[in-house]
């Protein structure tokens, strides 16, 4: 695909401006206007890319001006900053395609005046929808790169905040900005990110997740190795911690890295609550995820092999709910899990209002009917619904998908060897997590390698007075979060 597109793209190399015009005029939205002043100006533009009002009010009055004798006069009189006169075909092509107007006198097509009249079609900055929080700021990124950088710069009024813009994608030529705070972010991380983005060879980059998949350390892993967020406050906080942010034009999701596994279970709202609450909620979230992954495999293991593990009273309840079920536990679980997955997929694809209806129809009607028809036990229905609910507690959508998927191997292992099988599956997962790295940094940090100071903001969210140092994970240039003079003075006293 890549080779073919390159071929069509360069099959007829244009040699001059009129050749370029010939190619462009094949498209119906490419317009040409002619004015009969003493310069005989020709105006070329893509109608779909420019703001017609700007042209009408700012350009047309001068076109009939008889005092203008050459392009330079016209350029000086036009009320725009970014006008330029050039004969470089590459620049002309690029600018025309990004919403500029080309002006050239009829007799001389060598020199072209380029004037910006870009039509901005972006939606206004709106509320976060995926990472909604009840407390705190309600701003989310949008598709426009400059707006997104603006949202970050507004929160970080620092000359050290640096933005490196790279062009990625053979055809799309998407602008990708690598954002970091100079002096805090680790230079190795910045270099790694920039180098990996530069090394990307692909024709289209339409979203930051393309970049995310192409630059991560292990792309075969179901676990995300870069954090993606739509919250500017979260990105700002990550930048201050010494992480690197990647913003892609056309994507409302910003990637930050390096990250750790526990980072995915930290909601930014945790920082708006007092620390005991925040810690409690984080622990609840992590237990919810473990429950979500392990509960149906345990159901399969216990009901297939180890019914003696269940206390006798509970066993009675389970048996009575299962006595008419014609399937073995594993089949029952797989059917119900797949039903939930179906509902989830359908709910994600359908328009909001229909989605709600389908949710009710699927969740309540099918669920109740399946139990009444004797296809599944209601104990399992409760467990599967709880597991599905628990998987939604993850603040980052991407890790929720991972949790959806990884329970299936667990179910298979549980069917093979019961609880021992589950423990083997857990060991495989732990090894996989140990082997993962995010931009070369260990993924299971701070547990392994054990960096006890980093525990202050992982499983727990300890008070801000304890968060004196930036995480060791990012190996920042400036480790102290607080006023460095004050902390060093204190240290001196202690010694």
């Amino acid at each position, binding site marked *: 695909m890549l080779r073919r597109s390159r071929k069509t793209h360069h099959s007829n190399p244009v040699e001059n401006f009129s050749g370029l015009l010939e190619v462009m005029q094949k498209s119906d939205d490419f317009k040409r206007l002619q004015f009969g002043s003493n310069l005989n100006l020709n105006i070329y533009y893509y109608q779909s890319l420019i703001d017609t009002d700007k042209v009408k009010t700012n350009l047309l009055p001068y076109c009939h001006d008889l005092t203008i004798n050459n392009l330079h006069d016209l350029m000086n009189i036009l009320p725009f900053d970014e006008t330029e006169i050039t004969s470089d075909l590459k620049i002309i092509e690029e600018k025309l395609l990004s919403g500029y107007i080309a002006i050239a006198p009829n007799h001389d097509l060598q020199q072209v005046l380029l004037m910006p009249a870009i039509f901005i079609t972006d939606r206004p900055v709106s509320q976060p929808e995926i990472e909604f929080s009840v407390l705190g700021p309600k701003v989310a990124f949008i598709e426009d790169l400059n707006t997104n950088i603006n949202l970050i710069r507004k929160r970080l009024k620092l000359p050290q905040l640096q933005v490196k813009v790279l062009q990625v994608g053979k055809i799309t030529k998407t602008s990708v900005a690598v954002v970091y705070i100079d002096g805090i972010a680790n230079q190795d991380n910045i270099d790694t990110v920039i180098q990996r983005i530069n090394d990307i060879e692909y024709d289209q980059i339409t979203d930051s997740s393309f970049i995310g998949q192409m630059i991560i350390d292990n792309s075969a892993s179901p676990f995300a190795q870069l954090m993606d967020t739509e919250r500017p406050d979260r990105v700002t906080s990550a930048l201050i911690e010494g992480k690197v942010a990647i913003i892609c034009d056309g994507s409302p999701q910003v990637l930050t890295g390096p990250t750790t596994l526990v980072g995915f279970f930290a909601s930014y709202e945790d920082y708006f609550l007092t620390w005991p609450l925040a810690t409690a909620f984080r622990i609840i979230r992590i237990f919810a995820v473990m429950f979500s992954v392990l509960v149906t495999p345990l159901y399969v293991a216990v009901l297939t*092999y*180890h019914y*003696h*593990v*269940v*206390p*006798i009273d*509970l066993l009675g309840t389970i048996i009575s709910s299962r006595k008419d079920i014609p399937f073995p536990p594993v089949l029952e679980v797989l059917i119900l899990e797949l039903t939930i997955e179906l509902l989830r997929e359908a709910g994600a694809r359908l328009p909001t209002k229909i989605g709600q209806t389908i949710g009710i129809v699927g969740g309540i009607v099918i669920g109740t009917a399946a139990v009444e028809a004797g296809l599944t036990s209601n104990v399992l229905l409760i467990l599967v619904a709880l597991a599905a609910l628990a998987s939604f507690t993850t603040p980052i959508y991407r890790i929720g998908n991972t949790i959806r998927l990884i329970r299936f191997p667990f179910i298979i292992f549980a069917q093979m*060897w*019961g*609880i*021992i099988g*589950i*423990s*083997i599956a*857990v*060991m*495989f997962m*732990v*090894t*996989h997590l*140990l*082997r993962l790295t995010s931009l070369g940094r260990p993924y*299971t940090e701070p*547990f*392994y*390698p*054990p960096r006890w100071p980093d525990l202050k903001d992982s499983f727990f969210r300890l008070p801000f007075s304890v968060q004196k140092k930036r995480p060791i994970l990012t190996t920042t240039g400036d480790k102290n979060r607080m006023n460095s003079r004050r902390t060093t003075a204190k240290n001196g006293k202690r010694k």
Partner: protein
Amino acid sequence: MNTQQQKPDISQMVSPFLIFFILFSSQMGEGILSFGRKITKIAGYDSWISVLITGFLVTLVIIVIWRLIPPHEDLIDIHQTLFGKIIGNLLSFLFGIYLLVISMFVLRSYVEIIQVWFFPDLSLLWFYFIIYLLIVYIVLGGFRIIVGFAFFSAWIPLSLLFTVYTPFKTGHIENLLPILSTDYLNIIKAVEPIVSSFLGVELILLFAPFIRQFHKSRKWAISANIYTTLLYLLIIIADFFYFSENQIQQLTWPALHVWKIVSLPFIERFEYVGISLHFGSIIATTGLYFWGSVQSFHRLTKFSFRGISIISAISGVACMFVLSDYLIVEKLSALLTKAGMYLLFLYIPFLYICHIIHTGVKKRLES
């Protein structure tokens, strides 16, 4: 990361305090579940003293090991400098075989528990295939990954420690009294069976170059050994509180029967959960021994680490069928215990003496 180097660079090294978890994990094998039976047969209710004695002796061995190893060198280098290339490499090869056999033995004796408790008709080929796949997956990650696995698994015995609460609450402290009712000689003799539960110390001979500031890490190794000793002590005393002397000798795995007493509101037979959790420790021990054996073969030959580990894994799966009968496993256990005891208490001190003589002669020659 997958390419294991013969001599480690900084990216493969681990912090010195992780030696605590490495040593503790390599000591935690199947032994913790079964040693009660073996030592009670010899020294009765006084065998807890043997645990303390063994712990003390192994601490001495640790001190000797730390004095024996020169910086950035492992057992293979020591063998070569002391005995020359051919004999030294032969000894290192035997050591590698010994480690491989232990790794198989640890796994095999745990599979026995799984067969007895869970699945009498377990499909062994398939099971060993998956387990060795897991071990190779861990080992190929490099030293840091196997240590990470050992690190996580080291918390399992600790989390299972709450099970001793019930025997302590309902048991009889009088069982232990009077202390020293057994013959002194029997207490000393009981050291032998329990040594197999303390094995793992010899792995440090190979791990040493992978540990940053190795010579500062001795205190962590000693504290790991003390921790192991205390854990065993707690378990054996819990056994003694709850069971009579004769009963323990009847139970193949006394610790499992202690788990059986535990009753939680939502779990009836806790030993099922316990066996599944403890399997993590077993895989860590097997993995550490497996890594040690592959590393020694890798150092001796020029084959790749990956190739040797795959060959070792296949031979491991194959050997498991030779060890199909539990009586053979028990015989092997006795043999390995003897080998381990001689290794720790005779061979390592012998190496140390040779080392002292060698350095002394070298110094004299130089001056």
